[in-house]
């Protein structure tokens, strides 16, 4: 079975599950799906919102995929993207009068650095003390949220609000202008990132090192891969990728950082990466798919509880997981 066939199968399974839930709720599946599609791909605004929602998912999905290919599970996307977004908001706000050619890269760079810094602690713990990155990145999520609250209240937030001052216009990423939707050119950034990551993984020496490390660390080490350096670098790069999420939310949409902005995409990025099997190019459709469900949820909430969509997303991941499972008797 090819990857595409598997994905379709998983999708069908999830749709069937959802249909049952809809029926149980007394809503016609046809009607619900119709509404879901009409409000997402069926109208310009909805499509724009899908693109907008897909961008953070793609970036965190790429972040998780990258680490995953090197044998690491980065569960710290939430913290990394929050830190990156705050940094983008603060640096963006400081860019008044600075031309876009300087302001935008600086703001983006600040987000990547902040995301990377958050990932640095798990990275150091991993290579120095052998600490499991799943646990340390989860802990970092909690720590970062606390730190952001502290920084915000110590003056980073506009008084009596939970958001920072607006960014300079030159640091803003232009909107795509799709029917008033929040979609911005940050979409292009995500696409470029996916392509770049794909090329690096498939064709570069570093990418080969990462793949070898992920497949079998001891053999990679014997093959000249600097395990500690590559592992640490990988986590940093993954954090930096997640730190880019603010490009879509802060620079491309809100124009400032707000407490909780973009949260949830770190966690969903894991699901996106899993659905994509860790392949950067497959991350893009996977992100679009989850974004469609996520935005469609709002539309169908008049007919059925919105949260059914969460269940559907879970079932999709489950179905993909099952369809990827090695068949009986196959080589281990």
């Amino acid at each position, binding site marked *: 079975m090819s990857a595409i066939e598997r994905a379709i199968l998983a999708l069908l399974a999830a749709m069937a599950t959802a249909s049952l839930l809809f029926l149980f709720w007394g809503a016609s599946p046809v009607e619900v799906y119709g509404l879901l599609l009409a409000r997402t791909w069926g109208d310009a605004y909805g499509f724009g919102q899908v693109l907008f929602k897909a961008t953070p998912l793609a970036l965190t999905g790429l972040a998780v995929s990258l680490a995953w290919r090197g044998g690491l599970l980065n569960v710290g996307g939430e913290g990394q993207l929050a830190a990156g977004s705050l940094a983008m908001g603060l640096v963006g706000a400081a860019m008044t009068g600075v031309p876009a050619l300087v302001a935008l890269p600086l703001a983006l760079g600040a987000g990547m650095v902040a995301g990377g810094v958050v990932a640095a602690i798990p990275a150091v713990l991993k290579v120095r003390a*052998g*600490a*499991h990155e799943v646990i340390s990145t989860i*802990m970092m999520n909690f720590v970062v949220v606390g730190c952001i609250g*502290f920084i915000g209240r110590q003056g980073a937030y506009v008084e009596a609000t939970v958001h920072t001052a607006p960014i300079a216009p030159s640091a803003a990423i232009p909107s795509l202008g799709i029917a008033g939707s929040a979609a911005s050119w940050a979409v292009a950034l995500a696409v470029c990132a996916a392509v770049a990551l794909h090329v690096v993984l498939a064709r570069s020496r570093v990418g080969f090192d990462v793949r070898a490390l992920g497949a079998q660390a001891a053999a990679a080490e014997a093959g000249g891969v600097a395990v500690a350096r590559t592992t640490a670098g990988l986590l940093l790069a993954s954090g930096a990728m997640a730190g880019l999420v603010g490009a879509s939310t802060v620079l491309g949409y809100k124009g400032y950082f707000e407490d909780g902005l973009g949260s949830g995409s770190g966690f969903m990025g894991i699901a996106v990466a899993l659905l994509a099997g860790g392949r950067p190019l497959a991350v893009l459709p996977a992100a679009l798919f989850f974004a469609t469900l996520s935005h469609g949820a709002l539309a169908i909430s008049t007919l059925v509880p919105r*949260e059914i969509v969460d269940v559907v997303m879970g079932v999709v991941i*489950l179905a993909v997981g099952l369809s*990827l499972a090695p068949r009986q008797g196959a080589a*281990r």
Partner: protein
Amino acid sequence: MTTALLVAFVLAVFRISVPYVLAAVGGTLSERAGVVALGLEGMLLTGAFCAAVGAEAGGPAVGALAGAMGGAGVGVILAACVVYGRADGVVVGVAINLIALGGTRVAMQYVWQSASSSPTIPGLSGGWAGAAGLAALAVSGVAAAALTRTAWGLRVRAVGEHPAAATSLGIDVAQLRFGAVALSGALAGLGGAWLALDNHGFVDRMSGGRGYIALAAVIMGRWHPGFAALAAVCFAATEAAQLQLQAVVSGGAREFIQMLPYLLTLVALAGVLGRSRPPAALGRNV
């Protein structure tokens, strides 16, 4: 600290530790059998929800039972996918947690017409804290004994370390893993039930990441039920201290007090406890 405050603190530690300890012990069993325990969060949440439904219908005892069964149900689904469906444990864990999150909210709207919380349910009075805390610790002791002293425990360890070896000796690896994961679900579900019963109600996302912390405890406890329980209690103690300290500390330090448990975990991970070795076949299908 006066004696009264000390007692209050100890009771708080007991109360807070119950879900951590039960989930950590469950997680230890699951991982010792070779199945990644990433689904603890979903088990806790489902357990809490089922307990609230059960308690509303038939009182706290029914609630506790329903919680354990709800958690076990999640465990069964997870085990079916991982053990018989041969899916990756991490993937299934992520999926299960997402389904539990959405599923409890959907079910809440069905049962209570509210997406955010249940009505007040008959729960357990404050006096239960000590008993529940001790019972949870006792469970960890029983689990430790079962792992090291019984044939079942020997087999569980074997399938987690070297499933091929176990198979070659006629042991049904799938069945053992299935049982261990279902049991871990029941334990975590019971932990979730405590959350609901202690608070006389269920609220959306009630587990609040405790499943992940319990997983951290499993690792910090080096996959030993006793040490995992100890790690869980340490976690509860820092959390309790954090909550108690809030009553006396003010200002910007509060954020840092709230981070205390997580910071301590990071410090512990930084090598204070040394390196640990997971079960050799953890996460590997046969």
